[in-house]
């Protein structure tokens, strides 16, 4: 009898935690961004302001934004609504995002790293190219509707990094005065949304927590 209950517990445990483990493993996949130079900034400003293209060593970038389940695995006190394991984490400060990355021997990307992972070396203005996507960026709703990370299969960068022009904005190490820079989310106007361009940037106080700000890590 005890043996049967023991087996049942193992089965239940397997079915409860295996999917969550898969979710976390899926979310932790990283993509190698090779060393070399790339054009950074807003065209045609890039060619006017930058005498030389920006040169970066090779690095790795999370393929997906950090999910709620992945964040909770590192910070168990973090709470989120049931059924939103695979939604991108949000309401985290810059310091919390940095702490998460460091716990996994990673770090937040610099602005240059973020932008190179998004646009590659051909100076494109969206992660997928230069044309606007016909796919709607977001439902007609005044607030952020989060979907599972990787939901937008069209928003794929030069190197295969996902959702760098949609979903949540992402903390980087770039900053000015006391602010930190976020990259790659959506611009809202009433009930309409547009994808951000790879050079769009927003400065925010690092202590702010917003539903529209998440992050991904680099290494």
């Amino acid at each position: 009898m005890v043996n049967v209950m023991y087996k049942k517990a193992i089965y239940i445990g397997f079915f409860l935690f295996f999917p969550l483990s898969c979710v976390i493993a899926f979310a932790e996949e990283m993509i190698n961004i090779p060393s070399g130079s790339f054009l950074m900034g807003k065209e045609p400003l890039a060619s006017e302001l930058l005498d030389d293209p920006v040169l970066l060593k090779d690095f790795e970038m999370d393929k997906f934004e950090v999910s709620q389940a992945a964040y909770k695995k590192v910070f168990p006190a973090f709470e989120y609504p049931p059924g939103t394991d695979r939604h991108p984490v949000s309401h985290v400060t810059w310091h919390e995002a940095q702490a998460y990355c460091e716990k996994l021997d990673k770090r937040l990307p610099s602005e240059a790293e973020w932008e190179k992972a998004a646009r590659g070396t051909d100076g494109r203005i969206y992660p997928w190219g230069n044309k606007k996507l016909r796919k709607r960026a977001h439902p007609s709703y005044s607030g952020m509707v989060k979907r599972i990370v990787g939901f937008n299969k069209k928003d794929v960068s030069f190197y295969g990094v996902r959702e760098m022009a949609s979903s949540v904005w992402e903390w980087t190490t770039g900053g000015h005065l006391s602010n930190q820079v976020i990259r790659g989310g959506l611009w809202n106007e009433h009930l309409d949304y547009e994808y951000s361009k790879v050079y769009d940037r927003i400065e925010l106080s690092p202590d702010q927590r917003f539903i529209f700000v998440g992050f991904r890590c680099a290494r």
Partner: protein
Amino acid sequence: MTRIFLGVLGGVATFFKSSNTAFAGFNFWRSSEYVGKTRDGIYEKFYIQYYKPFKRIKGDSWTLKITGLCEHPQDLSLAEINTLPIKSQVSRIKCVECWSAKAAWSGFSLSELEKRVKPSPEAVGVLFRCADTYVEYLALEDLHHARTLLAHTMNGQPLTDEHGFPLRVIIPYKYGYKSPKAILEIEFVSEAGRGTWNRIGPYSVDGTILPGYDHPLDRGKKRRRITGGEIFD
């Protein structure tokens, strides 16, 4: 028949349009004992949005009812409200329909009321019930935010009926529909609730201002990018 109807409709529209031009500043509500939505006259610089027209509130008979999960539910008169420690700030209201407008606001923080009524530990938020039958919910976390105000004064004067006399919320990092006006009752509740706007349209419960575009009325509606959260300029 349709042509006649459309002709009459066009005539009426032309009349009202020319009336507005000829009597700049005139609007129906200002001349009546009711107050409601308007964008005419001085309100071209600060649009007025109400859910439904309502009879103007008389300050001497108005009381703020504080109910729900608190130890000492009570009614406070306008005179009592005006004795609470004053907090002032300049902040911009950003409407979800794109416009924004800025003013200097004075009032008090919710914590001043909480000292009197002592909310129960299980209270997580507040439902505001307003004279225009509008209802809005705000979490205590948001109501305790340093930039959130229960305002009774605008630009150094008591709120006008249009701007929410005698008491309104100012929560500048959320869209204007989260700043209820002409408040009649504050109810402490144990579960997050929904507001009128969220129930009737595609408007989020959260109401946080997203990165996007703003058309400030005080700058000729010239479109500009905003970063999300409070607009500080």
